[in-house]
C-alpha cells in the first residue's frame, strides 16, 4: 500500500461512522494536495482531516482516543518501546527543552510512578501545565538506555481533567563506593535572580552575567559498585547530614582559608572511597539523595566463599 493509501485508510477509519465517504475519496483529496500542490504529506493529512471535521461538525479532540483501540496503561506498566497507549496522569515537572524540535519535556506521573514525556514542536499540540492532570490518548512509548518514556505526536488527544492524582514515589535505592566528588561540589554560589538557581562560575551566571551570588552546599558524587555507576546529588540538607558541616561552618572555613574549595577538599578527604547506600527520587541522570546510610558493617563473606569453592 502506498503512503497516501495508508494515511487515507487511517483518516477514513476516523470518520466512517459520521460521514459517507470512501477511502478513495480521502486518497483523492490527499493526492491533489501532495502531488498537485506539493504540500507535505503531514500537512495534507491535517488539512483533509480538518475538512472532514468541519463537514461532520466535530471537534478535533473527538477523534482517536475512544475508537483508538489502544491499551489504557499506568506508568509502571510501560515496559516496551513503540506501543500506542492511552495514559492518565499529572504533569509533575516541566524541564527546559534542549532542542527546538522539542516543545515540552518533563515528567508525567500517576499512582504507580513517573515517566518522562516529550512533546514535539511539529505536533502543534496545546501547552501542558505543571500540576495539571491530563488524559493523553494515542501516545507512543519509547526506550533509551533501559528507561521508558512516552512521546506525544500529531494524533495525540490531550484532555485536561478536573481531578487530583496522588503521584506515587519512584524512589530508588543504590549502593556502592563513593568514587568521585565532582567539581561544583562543596560550598557553591547560586544566581539570586528569580527562578534562576544556576551555579556561578567565577562569580558569573551563564544567563545573567556577573551577580552577587548566594551561598549553598551540595555534593555531586558518583557511587560505583563495580558493575554500575550512579550519579548522586546531595542538596544542602543532605550534605549537612552526611558531612556534619553546616552552611555557616562551611562559609567560616572558606573565609579562614580565603578559598571556597577547602570545603570540597575536606569533604573528599572524609567521604571518598567509603561505601554508602542512598535513597531518593531520580532526576535526569541523578539520584537526588533523601536518605544516606554509611555501610560500615563488614559484609558476609560466608555465602561468597561457598560459591567460590563450588565453581
Amino acid at each position, binding site marked *: 500500500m502506498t503512503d497516501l493509501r495508508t494515511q487515507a485508510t487511517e483518516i477514513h477509519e476516523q470518520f466512517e461512522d459520521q460521514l459517507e465517504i470512501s477511502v478513495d475519496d480521502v486518497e483523492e483529496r490527499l493526492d491533489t494536495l501532495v502531488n498537485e500542490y506539493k504540500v507535505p504529506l503531514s500537512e495534507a493529512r491535517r488539512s483533509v482531516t480538518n475538512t472532514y471535521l468541519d463537514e461532520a461538525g466535530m471537534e478535533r479532540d473527538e477523534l482517536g482516543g475512544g475508537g483508538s483501540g489502544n491499551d489504557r496503561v499506568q506508568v509502571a506498566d510501560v515496559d516496551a518501546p513503540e506501543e500506542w497507549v492511552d495514559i492518565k496522569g499529572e504533569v509533575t515537572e516541566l524541564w527546559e527543552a*534542549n532542542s527546538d524540535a522539542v516543545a515540552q519535556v518533563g515528567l508525567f506521573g500517576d499512582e504507580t510512578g513517573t515517566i518522562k514525556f516529550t512533546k514535539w514542536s511539529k505536533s502543534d499540540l496545546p501547552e501542558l501545565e505543571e500540576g495539571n492532570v491530563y488524559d493523553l490518548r494515542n501516545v507512543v512509548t519509547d526506550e533509551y538506555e533501559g528507561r521508558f518514556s512516552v512521546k506525544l505526536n500529531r494524533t495525540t488527544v490531550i484532555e485536561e481533567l478536573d481531578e487530583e492524582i496522588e503521584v506515587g514515589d519512584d524512589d530508588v535505592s543504590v549502593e556502592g563506593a563513593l568514587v*568521585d566528588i565532582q567539581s561544583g561540589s562543596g560550598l557553591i554560589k547560586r544566581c539570586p535572580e528569580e527562578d534562576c538557581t544556576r551555579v556561578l562560575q567565577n562569580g558569573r551566571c551563564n544567563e545573567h552575567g556577573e551577580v552577587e551570588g548566594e551561598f549553598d552546599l551540595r555534593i555531586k558524587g558518583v557511587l560505583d559498585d*563495580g558493575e554500575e555507576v550512579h550519579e548522586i546529588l546531595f542538596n544542602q540538607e543532605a550534605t549537612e547530614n552526611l558531612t556534619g558541616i553546616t552552611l555557616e561552618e562551611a562559609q567560616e572555613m572558606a573565609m579562614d582559608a580565603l578559598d571556597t574549595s577547602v570545603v570540597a577538599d575536606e569533604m*573528599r578527604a572524609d567521604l571518598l572511597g567509603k561505601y554508602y547506600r542512598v535513597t531518593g527520587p531520580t532526576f535526569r541522570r541523578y539520584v537526588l539523595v533523601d536518605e544516606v546510610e554509611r555501610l560500615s558493617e563488614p559484609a558476609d563473606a560466608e555465602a561468597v566463599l561457598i560459591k567460590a569453592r563450588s565453581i
Partner: protein
Amino acid sequence: MATTPTREVARRVFAGEFNDATYTFKESDDERAPVYLLLPTGERANRVFLVGTLMETEDVGDDSEYWQGQVIDPNGDRYYMYAGQYQPDAASMLRELEPPAYISVVGKPRTYETDDGEVNVSIRPESITEVDAATRDRWVVETAERTLERIGRYKDGTAEDGDATVDEYVAMAAEEYDLPIEDYRRQVVEALESLEDDEAVAAEPDA
C-alpha cells in the same frame, strides 16, 4: 544529554589478577579514546577501585616529587601506584600517610614496558583516602564477588560445548593470554578465608 560521556565503572580486581593484565587496547582510533586494560578473566578496565594496606611509600622522583605507593591485598600481592605533580592530591596523601594504613584508591590502570620487554602494570591514582578495617573487609567480599562473576562468564564463554555468543572481552582474553583462570578462583577463596580467620581471632580474646 547524549553529549555526556558515560562514566567508566571502576573494576574490582585482586592484585594477583591485576598484575597479570599486561594487554591494553583502544576501542576507536581517536587519539583521546580511553585506553583499556584487559583483565585475564575477560573484562575491560579503564578505572579500578581498591582498598588495601599501604605498606610502603617512597619519593622515587629525580627533579620533582614522584611518589610510589605499595598496597597489599589479602593474598599478599601488591598493587603499585605512582603520583606526581599532575596528581597533586594523591601525591600529597602518599607523602603524608604513615604505613601501615588502610587506604582506598580510585585510579586508572597504566602499563609500562621495561628495557627487557617485561610489562609492568601500575595505577595512576585519582584519589586516595584513609579508611577503616570494615571498609577494607567490605571491599574484599565485593571484589571476590565481582571476580567470581567474571570467572563464571569466562568459563561459560570458553567451554567446548558453550553457546556461540561469547562475550567480546572473554574472547579477547582467551586470545591474548595464556593464564590459568583457576589461579584467580583460588585467590578469591584465600582472600575470603583470610576474613574468616580474622573473625575467629576476634572471637577469641585470649588468642
